[in-house]
């Protein structure tokens, strides 16, 4: 198979993400730190997993979203069956669940690729004879790494490789900031989609075919985003809207929320500076599964 290569009698494995050659006994790729279990399982099953990239600016909520999504799939939400491939795949959802039950947001995702959480699952929608199993890889990337890659392509080659190989993507956008009139969410989304456009563009007039779900996170701050998501994007994220309409063939818009009520612990920190630490008082999941279901149906 193309994933394996014999060189001087020593078989080597080619990483599924960055295609770097690795020795057979490595656990993570020496180049991009992706789990080599992806390759081992692919060899066993004779097919490559489908990659869903979860993208978004720093602090938009990628880790929380992905953690809850995986946990919900593990609990057979909406008749999905999901099986983690490898104990490491469970780390992300366990971390998110543990943090949120303690009324804390999970720690910031580090920029170093070898500290990203790689979730590798087999999933299918149960019911029906033709329900298909999907091998899904969904890494939890750091928003700053994405920003750095967008600003200077090839800063993180693993991101480029990941996106190039993705069967679908979710772009998470901070609806709360957008609703308050901040332009940063719109500009980041615009840059991210432009980057994706440049990766997949073949002909000048051809639209990008890769399905992309635009997911408005923290939508509990602006309930109107649930009522009419398209209208909200058109109004508050107009640059993104225009680019999606002109350059992307398969795009859908969703609103989601995981926090039912957000409060702040206020006071002075050790340096005497005032601060407000956000506290998720309770969890109320809305719209977590819908983007995933839509993407799966389009992949």
């Amino acid at each position, binding site marked *: 198979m193309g994933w394996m290569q014999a060189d001087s009698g020593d078989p080597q494995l080619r990483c599924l993400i960055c295609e770097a050659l690795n020795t057979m006994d490595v656990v993570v790729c020496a180049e991009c730190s992706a789990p080599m279990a992806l390759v081992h399982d692919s060899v066993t099953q004779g097919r490559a997993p489908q990659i869903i990239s979860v993208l978004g600016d720093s602090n938009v909520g990628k880790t929380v979203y992905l953690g*809850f999504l995986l946990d919900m799939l593990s*609990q057979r939400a909406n008749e999905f069956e999901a099986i983690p491939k490898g104990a490491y795949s469970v780390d992300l959802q366990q971390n998110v669940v543990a943090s949120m039950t303690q009324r804390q947001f999970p720690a910031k995702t580090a920029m170093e690729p070898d500290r990203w959480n790689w979730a590798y699952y087999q999933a299918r929608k149960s019911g029906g004879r033709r329900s298909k199993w999907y091998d899904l890889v969904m890494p939890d990337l750091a928003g700053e790494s994405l920003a750095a890659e967008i600003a200077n392509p090839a800063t993180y080659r693993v991101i480029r490789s990941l996106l190039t190989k993705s069967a679908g993507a979710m772009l998470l956008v901070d609806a709360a900031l957008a609703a308050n009139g901040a332009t940063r969410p719109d500009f980041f989304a615009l840059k991210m989609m432009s980057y994706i456009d440049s990766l997949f563009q073949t002909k000048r007039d051809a639209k990008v075919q890769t399905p992309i779900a635009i997911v408005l996170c923290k939508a509990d701050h602006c*309930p109107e985003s649930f009522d009419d998501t398209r209208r909200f994007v058109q109004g508050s994220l107009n640059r993104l809207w225009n680019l999606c309409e002109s350059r992307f063939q398969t795009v859908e818009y969703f609103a989601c929320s995981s926090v039912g*009520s*957000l*409060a702040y612990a206020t006071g002075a920190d050790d340096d005497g500076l005032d601060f407000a630490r956000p506290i998720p*008082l*309770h969890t*109320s*999941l809305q719209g977590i599964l819908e983007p995933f279901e839509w993407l799966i149906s389009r992949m």
Partner: protein
Amino acid sequence: MLRGFFRQDAPTGGGRAGVDEDPLRACMQLERFGVIVTRGERWRAHPDYENVFQAALDAIDQRFSLVPEGFVSMPTTVTDEPGCPETDHETEPFLLARTCVTNAQYQKFVDAGSYEDLEIWPESIWPHLIGFQDQTGKAGPRFWRGGRHDEAKGDHPVVGICAYEAATYANWAGFRLPTEAEWQMAASWRIRTSAHVFRRYPWGDSHDPRRCNTWASGRGGTVPVGTYTEGAAPNGVLQLIGNVWEWTASDLEMTDDKGRPVVGDMLLKAIRGGAFDTYFSCQATSHFRTGLACLARAHNVGFRCVLDAGRRDG
């Protein structure tokens, strides 16, 4: 006896049409039983007062259950772990509605023109009244349309109402919202006996998705208030856990582990019980404390009413 107080040909349209012009009968028709029982002195001279009063008592007897006196311990920090600081609260006996207020019941409040009657609202809320609109711009809960609820969900708990709407309805009907301590007492059933116990859930100590409508139940939305009877409290009160969070009259007062106050963008009112979309079972218990912005009109928050035991005229 009750039949005579309701118009047989009550129209299905909104507004004040269909409501008896007699204020005493109107109260009965609008299910303002608490007003009749606690503030009925003004109607003592009414020829039907005794009958109406008894009918209101009967209605309360059917819809409310007694919660005996007791005491509760409430954690004061956001991290609710064994050994965390708590405050103790004594509760007097009170009558608690067996179900949350339904869409059909709340419809009467809306149809009576309550959103236009400034007198029944706190003055501090008057500037916000204009924002208490449904999807079509009519006054009413957030998810209604044209001032009407979804007819298929008449027996579901009313949602999309803020804390002030809940409190104003309760007061309009002659009741009030429970305090946080009262709500917890009703759900935990912590009575002062030699056996110093309280229940994590109204039915016992183990979470059971068959007894309450939370995320684990897989319903994905509210259910009629009369369902999940297996999850009832010892006095027959239903759905204290799950279906919808319930507004209380209490402000949420909590601190973090270092004693720093926990605040929101606006005043936080305590809500209790969990809802259909509560993912963690540990957040749908009798003692889990949380809050919501007082003006939030969430899809998963409703309320039920309380009447002080022994508070009756006549």
